């Protein structure tokens, strides 16, 4: 986490969580989380459903109160404040637009509650609608808009209040793929322009990787890793993170010496794990980092295992080979290039990779 820019001393912390725990009866939804989100940062909370990411977001919003711990927004303790007393706004998963109010009144709701003058509300609502490119929709009711338009209105309704932090709870989940990709880049652009922190909850790892400055991976109420996307992908801290982000082959083995890992089939690969001799480990081999060749076609500086092609998945731009090793199956992804030799099921091959292309985490599955 040392290469993370937002946690350094020079940046202001927008949201600070210390020992935040939330219990619902016997269930621990969020378990003792420490997290600093920098001012102006695009931060994604990523995890499978039920991991506690939404509860964490709701605690920042004030829609849930932590059972334990301290929650600060710009150095003000807000853990017990109701949502209307916090300088944050939320874009809800189902948008939660008020069905009985037109778009102008929906967007202007927050300002009205803050007793902003009528004339100013009008200007700011106009600006907000312009920002989301829906200026001519002010007179309509929410149910007269498409899902994508409702999503933009929800965004405008939150941003018109100029929150210090914008919270987004899976805001793109209900949109179709094309619209989602479009909104992803728009959100990112908007966030850069506004310069405020966006805290974004998602279960879509691709979304998190493409949009965020940093990602926090959660599972079972715990925050497992907080890092920029690249670090999350390249250096996951454990098997869960490695498996959750992208496609992964986890080759299990044991640390034989300071720079050799012995895989379960007995193959020795040179790898400096920094772990004690005898530790059980999993070597993370991403499908695109491995190459397939004919048997014993290894170059220096590479590790290799022998296997047999079991099946082939054609993806258009790439081909994924499932290779059966002695003790497990792994996927290898090759770009679909014209000069590349295709392999056939049943073919005996060697899967090889550069020494530096793999990462290693402690433990086995």
């Amino acid at each position, binding site marked *: 986490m040392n290469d993370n820019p937002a946690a350094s001393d020079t940046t202001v912390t927008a949201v600070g969580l210390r020992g935040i725990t939330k219990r619902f009866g016997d269930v621990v939804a969020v378990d003792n989380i420490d997290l600093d989100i920098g001012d102006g940062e695009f931060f994604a909370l990523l995890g499978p459903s039920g991991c506690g990411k939404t509860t964490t977001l709701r605690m920042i*919003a*004030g*829609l849930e109160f932590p059972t334990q711990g301290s929650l600060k927004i710009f150095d003000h303790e807000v853990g017990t404040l*109701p*949502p*209307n007393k916090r300088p*944050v*706004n*939320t874009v*809800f998963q*189902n948008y*939660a*637009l*008020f*069905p*009985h109010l037109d778009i102008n009144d929906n967007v202007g*709701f*927050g300002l009205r*509650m*803050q007793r902003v003058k009528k004339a100013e509300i009008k200007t700011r609502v106009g600006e907000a609608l312009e920002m989301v490119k829906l200026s001519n929709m002010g007179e309509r009711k929410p149910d007269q808009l498409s899902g994508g338009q409702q999503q933009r209105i929800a965004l405008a*309704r*939150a941003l018109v*209040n100029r929150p210090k932090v914008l919270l987004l709870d899976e805001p793109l989940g209900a949109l179709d793929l094309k619209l989602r990709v479009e909104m992803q880049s728009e959100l990112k652009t908007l966030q850069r322009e506004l310069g405020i922190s966006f805290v974004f909850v998602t279960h879509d790892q691709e979304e998190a990787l493409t949009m965020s400055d940093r990602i926090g991976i959660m599972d079972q109420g715990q925050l497992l890793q907080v890092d920029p996307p690249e670090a999350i992908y390249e250096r996951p801290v454990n098997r869960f993170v490695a498996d959750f982000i992208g496609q992964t082959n986890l080759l299990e083995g044991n640390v034989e010496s300071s720079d050799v890992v012995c895989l379960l089939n007995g193959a020795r690969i040179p790898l400096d794990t920094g772990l004690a001799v005898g530790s059980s480990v999993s070597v993370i081999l991403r499908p695109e980092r491995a190459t397939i060749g004919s048997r014993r076609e290894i170059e220096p500086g590479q590790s290799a295992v022998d296997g047999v092609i079991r099946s082939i998945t054609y993806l258009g731009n790439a081909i994924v080979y499932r290779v059966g090793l002695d003790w497990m199956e792994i996927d290898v992804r090759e770009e679909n290039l014209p000069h590349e030799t295709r392999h056939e099921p049943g073919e005996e091959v060697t899967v090889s990779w550069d020494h530096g292309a793999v990462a290693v985490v402690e433990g086995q599955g």
Partner: protein
Amino acid sequence: MTITEIVAPEPSGDENEVAAATPEFERAAKRAASRRGFLIALPAYFYLVLFFAIPLVIVMVYSFATRNRFGGTDLSGWNLDAYRKLSEPLVRDILFRSLWLALITTVICLIIAYPFSYYLATRTPTIRNVMLVFVMIPFWTNFLVRNYAWRVLLGTNGPVSKATDFVGLGDTRILFTPTAVVIGLVYGFLPFMILPLYASLERIDLGLVEASRDLYANGFQTFRRILLPLSMPGVIAGSILVFIPSLGAYVTPEILGGAKTTLLGSYIVTQFLTARNWPVGASLSFTLTVVMLFATILYFRKGGRTL
């Protein structure tokens, strides 16, 4: 849960699916569907005509008739005398008193039922069902019996009187006062307020409440700007269902009200049975029915549309 069905007439959309091919087919399908619909509704139409429309016409006819000196009614010499009587101070007082008590009853029911219905609507389905059964339990006992029970509760040396005496308020005399009537009416009609309110509150997405709080509204503002407007159909339906029977109530005022608090229901009964002045009783009944009918139609055209 018939209440829900009354306040929420869902349009049946299945005819539209059949009609797709040609305009002629579409029209034929529509005709067939409406014929089927009429057949299904026929028993209800029959019932309404026989027991509502025809009696109402009879009441109207009698309201223009003349009372003869023997207490009978002559169905000749049509006149408006009975309606003139309605402007007399005595009748006017009774009318205003009835309106006033019905209004108070409705408002109290609303104040009690709204928070309760909201609480109910925000519980888990199991708890909701259990509590709804509790709301219905009073219906298992006869209405008359329940009113007599209040007589015991509110009477001299009754529990209420003893309780107020115990806390030093003296032994209050509530029975045979307008207060007793209002207590009885609120008790009797509260479920009619709770059910439609619950039905409309239950349909509101609670995420809207959270969104409102997130947008700087406090609890009261959220109620005022979000919950209340969205539950208005329930408020109106409940109010009508409480106000109308309260206005015409007969049993409760008879049992719990004193001689001084004659209400419309009792007055009408007196006109028919004691004073034997059918035209006056009929004119009052007819006026009341027509006013209520228009009020209800107005509701369905205004508030009912958003259901």
